[in-house]
């Protein structure tokens, strides 16, 4: 019987938790991010005001989602662009695939888009015989390794240069002379440049859909997104419906906040705005412009007033970076498109609470994620709510439900509670006395596997209090 997602998670987490090399690589990457992020924060006079404003912008957008989506669509359509509304992954993939086959597309160049990972667009196109090039450098690397992105902003942060050099040697059919990052980038540039100039279709995501201007906004650093959306004849945007913002001017605060939270930069190198295919008189640009608006469970999340704000996420990755669980198990362990705190909150809504509730439990609820979220999503409290939703849906183990029923009974009756506590201490004392500590019969073996045993007091506090009171 194949393992459930929860079982796989536990297995992978066990392996990664013990992988000190992995921890060191991630620690170095996160230290680098922390330093850059602090510098970025210093460029913003009032960070809390910035977060407040971003929260307000997204709240307005999401709570009037139909209005702003229609405004965006109207402007795009008026310029001759095509807007397709996809209920789910299948519809979105079918639209792009049919478009590609109709227009005789042989090669696609793709810039980074987590939504395309979510809907497995690359696989759908390759099945149709279309070659897909991931052009974001990190995505290019993990595509060669045939794995998914490790992190939503830095897809290859789990790899060292030597591993990448070896990978290129194996997969690119050319001699790799060095593992210097600049050299490796130059290799990728040469390989991908051929793709940029020969591909018939460029696929991008969108960080924001600007309703009043009817444009998509893409924040990048490498220039691959620019080339994907400039050279090929057809430009397809694949985006979640929640990416919409009301006004162009909203970018004045969203761009710097996204960059600060994402990488520590004041702003990303390229803030690209595209409203359609090339207009007459323009020197270049695609001839066709398509926007695929993907629902795939988002409208359902929208209907949950308690968790609607989860749709405010601007996919900056800050919560992943600060999360101690992420830092110790890494992005692949989650086994989902979106890892980290946002992934743990979101995935049960997109992919089902029964299969993915374990992610909401795989957290100490430390709240660090909530404290850094630039749009002030109450992430760790949403994890708590997911846990409640899971028990209410009957998705938790019967043995656990019974255990808490018994626990409740004890807590409502002080004598049973006190007796229970006393019995536990007694049982442990006997077990330790018999030398069972660390063995299969050790009642505390989960604890004692990694920790020295908890010392057992002679009496409880209340017993001592009663004794002291009687003595006076």
């Amino acid at each position: 019987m194949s393992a459930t997602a929860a079982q796989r998670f536990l297995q992978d987490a066990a392996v990664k938790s013990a992988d000190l090399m992995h921890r060191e690589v991630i620690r170095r990457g996160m230290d680098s991010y922390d330093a850059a992020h602090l510098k970025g924060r210093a460029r913003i006079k009032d960070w809390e005001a910035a977060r407040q404003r971003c929260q307000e912008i997204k709240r307005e957008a999401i709570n009037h989602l139909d209005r702003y989506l229609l405004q965006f669509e109207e402007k795009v359509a008026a310029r001759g662009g095509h807007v397709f509304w996809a209920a789910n992954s299948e519809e979105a993939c079918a639209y792009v695939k049919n478009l590609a086959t109709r227009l005789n597309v042989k090669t696609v160049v793709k810039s980074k888009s987590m939504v395309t990972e979510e809907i497995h667009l690359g696989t759908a196109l390759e099945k149709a015989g279309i070659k897909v090039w991931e052009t974001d450098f990190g995505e290019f690397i993990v595509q060669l390794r045939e794995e998914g992105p490790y992190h939503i902003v830095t897809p290859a942060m789990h790899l060292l240069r030597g591993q990448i050099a070896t990978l290129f040697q194996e997969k690119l059919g050319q001699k790799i002379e060095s593992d210097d990052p600049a050299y490796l980038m130059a290799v990728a540039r040469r390989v991908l440049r051929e793709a940029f100039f020969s591909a018939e279709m460029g696929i991008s995501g969108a960080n924001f859909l600007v309703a009043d201007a009817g444009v998509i906004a893409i924040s990048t650093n490498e220039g691959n997104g620019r080339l994907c959306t400039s050279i090929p004849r057809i430009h397809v945007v694949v985006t979640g419906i929640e990416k919409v913002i009301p006004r162009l001017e909203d970018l004045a605060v969203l761009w710097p906040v996204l960059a600060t939270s994402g990488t520590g930069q004041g702003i990303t190198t390229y803030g690209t705005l595209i409203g359609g295919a090339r207009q007459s008189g323009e020197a270049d640009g695609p001839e066709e412009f398509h926007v695929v608006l993907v629902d795939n469970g988002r409208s359902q999340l929208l209907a949950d007033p308690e968790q609607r704000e989860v749709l405010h996420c601007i996919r900056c990755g800050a919560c992943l970076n600060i999360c101690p669980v992420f830092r110790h198990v890494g992005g692949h362990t989650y086994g989902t498109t979106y890892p980290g705190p946002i992934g743990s909150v979101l995935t049960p809504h997109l992919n089902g609470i029964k299969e993915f509730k374990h992610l909401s439990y795989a957290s100490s609820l430390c709240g660090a994620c909530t404290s850094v979220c630039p749009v002030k999503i109450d992430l760790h409290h949403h994890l708590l709510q997911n846990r409640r939703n899971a028990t209410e849906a009957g998705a938790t183990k019967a043995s656990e439900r019974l255990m808490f029923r018994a626990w409740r009974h004890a807590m409502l009756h002080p004598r049973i509670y006190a007796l229970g506590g006393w019995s536990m201490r007694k049982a442990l004392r006997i077990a330790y006395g018999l030398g069972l500590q660390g063995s299969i019969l050790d009642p505390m073996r989960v604890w004692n596997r990694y920790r020295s045993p908890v010392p057992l007091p002679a009496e409880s506090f209340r017993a001592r209090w009663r004794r002291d009171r009687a003595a006076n």
Partner: protein
Amino acid sequence: MPQTDRAQSENPSREQILQRIRAGLRTPVKVEEPAATTSDRMIFEPIQNPLERFQQECIANLMECALTADSTASARHLADVLQSLPEGEIFVQDDPSLRRVVELAAPGRAIRWSSQGAPSEASQATVTLAEALIAQTGSILVTASCGGRGASVIAPCHIVYATIPQLVPDLATALGRASREQTLDHNSFACVISGSSRTADIEKILVQGAHGPRRLVVILQTER
């Protein structure tokens, strides 16, 4: 925009999604009132000296910014930059002021003008005007009118010929103006560029010159 029957049959999910959204939004969210309303002034420090700030940001962004007094000086600087590049075609936005300054700077150079189409893959450099410069972030705002989309990304070196009156203090000003002037109705594309292309995807180590230009040069002339 009214939904035609043909459109409905081509994209039936559209109406379903809209219905789901509207149904979902019928329940309002609880919103805590913030302590104080936010305003732009609170978020970013006001820019006291835009020119100075722009120059500082250019340095931080690893951009080159050269101040010139007039078009002769600008041509001289442009000549220096072009001479430092390998031989080969350059792509230039077809604009009278650029025709003048490029003719002064590099009379013998092979030039492809934007009126002839997209830049070629082997361009050694591109030369364009800008829509605006932004002091807050050390950015240039280009549009499709500035020689097209590829003009600011295809070649290893992008040279921008701008004037100080084009400098605005911050993103809010630049975007506000673009909104009012409907820049994105008249152009299919615009881009706020804040440095050379780069990546930190390997071990978070910064590498300059990823897929876009490694070198971004701003020739900033006092006046047109």
